């Protein structure tokens, strides 16, 4: 049962297309598994579409600027639009549609089907430390890193915090931290103030996004800080 969802504002930015690809992908993956958010997204999209395509309200400024220059601009625009129409309709072919394809990924001998949103993003070679495996997704978003993180049964990520944010979407399996248990489909967005120590009893695969290396906070684990940047 999915218990953790993206906030309303995040869904709105998603619908508006304003999020970085990594976060939009996170929401898309979650919504695939969450009818509730799917419904909200459909409603928001309908609203923003209505709003986008209603006739522009006539403002006083527009009336004032209705001069000869704007008239000639209109003509230039008409020409441009005419040539666009003829370029576009030049070819009668329609796009061929096929069923969405499922891409699979293997971590430690276990095969997982990836969500559609990840179906064509280049995946780096898996790097392994102990029970953790991580593959980077090549999204090229500068300081924002997206990865697939696999935890073998009994493994966990040492207690850590972030300077920025950390998003985890559970693709398969479950893990627990001090706040409780997280399951397949959960969308967990943490900011830099939160310290946690996720442990996965039965193993799990997560989609993760973070905008800074994670920072280990507990005793001996501080020694692990150099590998913080490895995991996220």
């Amino acid at each position, binding site marked *: 049962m999915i218990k953790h969802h993206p906030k309303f504002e995040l869904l709105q930015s998603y619908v*508006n297309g304003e999020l970085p690809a990594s976060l939009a992908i996170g929401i898309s993956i979650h919504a695939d598994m969450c009818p509730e958010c799917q419904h909200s997204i459909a409603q928001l*999209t309908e609203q923003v579409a209505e709003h986008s395509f209603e006739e*522009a309200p006539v403002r006083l400024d527009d009336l004032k600027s209705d001069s000869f220059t704007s008239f000639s601009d209109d003509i230039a625009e008409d020409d441009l639009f005419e040539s*666009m129409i003829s*370029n*576009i*309709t030049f070819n009668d072919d329609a796009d*061929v549609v096929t069923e969405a394809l499922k891409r699979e990924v293997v971590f430690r001998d276990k095969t997982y089907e990836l969500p559609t949103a990840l179906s064509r993003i280049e995946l780096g070679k898996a790097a392994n430390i102990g029970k953790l495996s991580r593959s980077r997704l090549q999204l090229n978003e*500068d300081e924002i890193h997206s990865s697939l993180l696999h935890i073998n049964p009994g493994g966990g990520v040492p207690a850590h915090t972030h300077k920025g944010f950390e998003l985890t979407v559970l693709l398969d399996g479950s893990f627990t931290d001090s706040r409780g248990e997280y399951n397949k489909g959960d969308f967990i967005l943490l900011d830099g103030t939160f310290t946690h120590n996720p442990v996965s009893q039965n193993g799990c695969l997560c989609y993760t996004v973070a905008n800074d290396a994670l920072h280990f906070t507990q005793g001996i684990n501080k020694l692990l800080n150099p590998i913080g940047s490895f995991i996220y």
Partner: protein
Amino acid sequence: MVVEQTKLPTGVSHAKSNGMNENIDHTQLSEWLNQVADKRCKIAFTHLFKFFAPKIQRIARSKFPNEAQSHEVVQETMSNVWRKAHLFDANKGAATTWVYTVMRNVTFDLLRKVKSNREDNLSDDIWPIAEGAVTEDQAYEDHLESNQLLRVIDALPEAQQQVVKGFYLMEMSQEQLANHLNLPLGTIKSRLRLALAKLKVQLGEEND
């Protein structure tokens, strides 16, 4: 026993009819889209273009400082409307919602191209424009399938990678061509447009 059939308007449908804008003729827009899909009707497409293009242009101008880029959004969006109209399903939502999705996806991909220099066109995977389906440039044609040939589409994710990494792109970009000929980009773009339009006339004459 007679079941009471008369229902008061439910909250949902009431809210919906209020939300629907009265100055948009949704039925007409859907009809045009269907004519484009079924009959490849250029007149219906021209109607759609005249309704949507100026609004798309206005929205794109707020997201891109550059006029050429906002034209690109208009061109790309309307071109997708033309090529993908058959994916529109009036039972699933309004024409405005569908065109909005197409425009948002085009804008997202272009912004990503401008900011991250990535041309991976991820938007249709993030926001599918038809349920359970993807449009596939790479897809093999229907006639191959109807000949009961193998469904080679399995090969696609890798084939897509091939497209990204499989060969050194020989085709020049418009920018490279402009540089090479030492002409402004705008001139190259209009030359290309003009050449293709002319070509259409020539081919048209030949086909008669």
